[in-house]
């Protein structure tokens, strides 16, 4: 393995007009780590993801992947390196059946490269992947139009689209928001399994209880700045975090 960390973020800045969305963000991520990225609404979590995946260009700073400078690369190139993300707001192709939504990621050059120049039967692969994230095959849920699926399945579909790209680093932006406790409980084992496969994962979450059960490490953002970074217990003890989350001294 290489000596470089999987991901390095250095002195990253981004502003939208007068809003400092990200200010001097620095961190490194080791291979196999599960990092929780938390912070109040509007603290810059999604912007950080957008910067890493190339959807937004930074004002300053650099992003390194396995030691390689990927700052301001277009999203499709970032994905081909092995970084896949999910969106906080899922927007599937509503008129298409769920499994047809998988075709576009399965058409990715990344997939072709991973499978040795062959795509295989995309429909069959799509159905297998969906079963992996909990689309019960017997119930034929995968054949339903995305518009007819409840939020829980749309989030699973979003996760399956990322898994289809066979990434080394997965960034999940509020995958659990809008889901019931039972739904979250049924998705957690899928994430545990991805970890066992050696994937490095960044999870942005408001559901702290569930996140803390699986995270190795937590970074807290507030007004675009990192205010804490460490293991779960230490971070939750820190004064800044209590202030940011509870607004008390």
């Amino acid at each position: 393995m290489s000596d470089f960390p999987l991901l390095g973020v250095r002195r990253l800045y981004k502003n939208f007009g007068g809003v400092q969305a990200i200010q001097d963000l620095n961190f490194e991520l080791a291979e196999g780590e599960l990092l929780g990225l938390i912070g109040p609404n509007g603290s810059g979590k999604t912007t950080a993801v957008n910067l890493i995946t190339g959807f937004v260009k930074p004002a300053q700073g650099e992003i390194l992947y396995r030691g390689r400078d990927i700052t301001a690369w277009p999203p499709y190139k970032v994905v081909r390196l092995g970084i896949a993300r999910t969106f906080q707001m899922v927007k599937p192709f509503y008129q298409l059946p769920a499994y047809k939504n998988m075709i576009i990621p399965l058409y990715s050059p990344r997939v072709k490269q991973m499978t040795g120049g062959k795509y295989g039967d995309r429909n069959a692969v799509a159905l297998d992947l969906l079963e992996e994230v909990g689309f019960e095959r017997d119930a034929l849920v995968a054949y339903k139009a995305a518009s007819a699926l409840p939020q829980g399945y749309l989030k699973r579909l979003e996760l399956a689209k990322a898994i289809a790209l066979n990434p080394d680093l997965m960034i999940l932006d509020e995958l659990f928001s809008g889901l019931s406790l039972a739904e979250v409980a049924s998705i957690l084992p899928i994430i545990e399994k991805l970890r066992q496969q050696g994937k490095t994962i960044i999870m942005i979450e408001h559901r702290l209880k569930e996140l803390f059960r699986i995270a190795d490490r937590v970074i807290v953002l507030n007004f675009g700045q990192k205010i804490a970074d460490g293991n779960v217990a230490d971070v939750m003890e820190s004064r800044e975090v209590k202030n940011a989350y509870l607004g008390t001294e």
Partner: protein
Amino acid sequence: MRRRKERIDRGIKVRSGDVFALCSWREMLYLAAPRMLPIVGLLVLSLALSVYWQRVLLSVSVFALLAISWDILAQSGMISLGQALFFGSGAYLAGIMNHYWGWPPAVTIPLATIFGGLLCTLLLTPVLRLRGIYFSMVTLVLPLMLVRIVEATRIFGGTEGLSGLASFPTRWVEIYLIIAALLAALFGFRRLMDSDFGLVLKGINDNDRSVMNAGINIYWFKIQALFIASSVGAFAGAFMTHVYLFVGMPVFALDYSILPIAAAVVGGIGTLAGSTLGAFILVPLSEILRGLGGLRIVFYGLFLVIFTVALPEGIFHYVQRKYHQFERWAEVER
């Protein structure tokens, strides 16, 4: 015996998901009829029409090709207001090759199709990053600019154009070539748009961030769609050059840009069959209204308005829905 009504496609749908299981001639016919209709219809028309209306059929087919080209772009998220660019490029290229180098239509048409497609793709690639109306504006302006360039520099015959170009061997070659091209474009590109490649194009139209996020270079796919669509348009132009035996500034006229859009809207946006159907209604209508002189545009416009208000989904989508709802009498088991 008790009977009830059921939809003809019931048996077909019940037995299978998307693989059709055909159990009777009637079911076979039900599925085949919509595909056979354009083929049989065009062949019958080509034989039954007078020479004058055969000419109209040529024009209809050319506009149908331009409308198909427009719809391929629209399905891929690019709204073109400049189909005349594709048509005119193909027309001029064929004319130039024939006039200056004496190449016959059998050579000029294929070459003009490919190089016309390449030329238009090259011209539009720099503006592919523009979204929505900004892209459309450029497509609208380009053909108008090319006309002025031809006029000002007097190249390729200037305002006079190039005349006395080679014709097809016979009227029949003309008509069957365009019919074959139309059917090939209609069925071939419909298949393409239903393939996984087409799904990616439609995905770009729907939500380009999601497609980029799959590691797909959306500009490369847009370029491919642009090349396909502009080649179809360039073919139509090259073909018409050898029908009119002339090419000149009118090939960049606004008609070639606007009528295909009207055809797609009337016929049904998002389906190549709809665009074709639209051309088959609008072009003959325009011929029939010719007798009205100056009022022609008024009636034509009125017709367009009535149609879009009455059937905003387009004729094809309407007919397709009704066709799927066709019913027959079936015995009820007790």
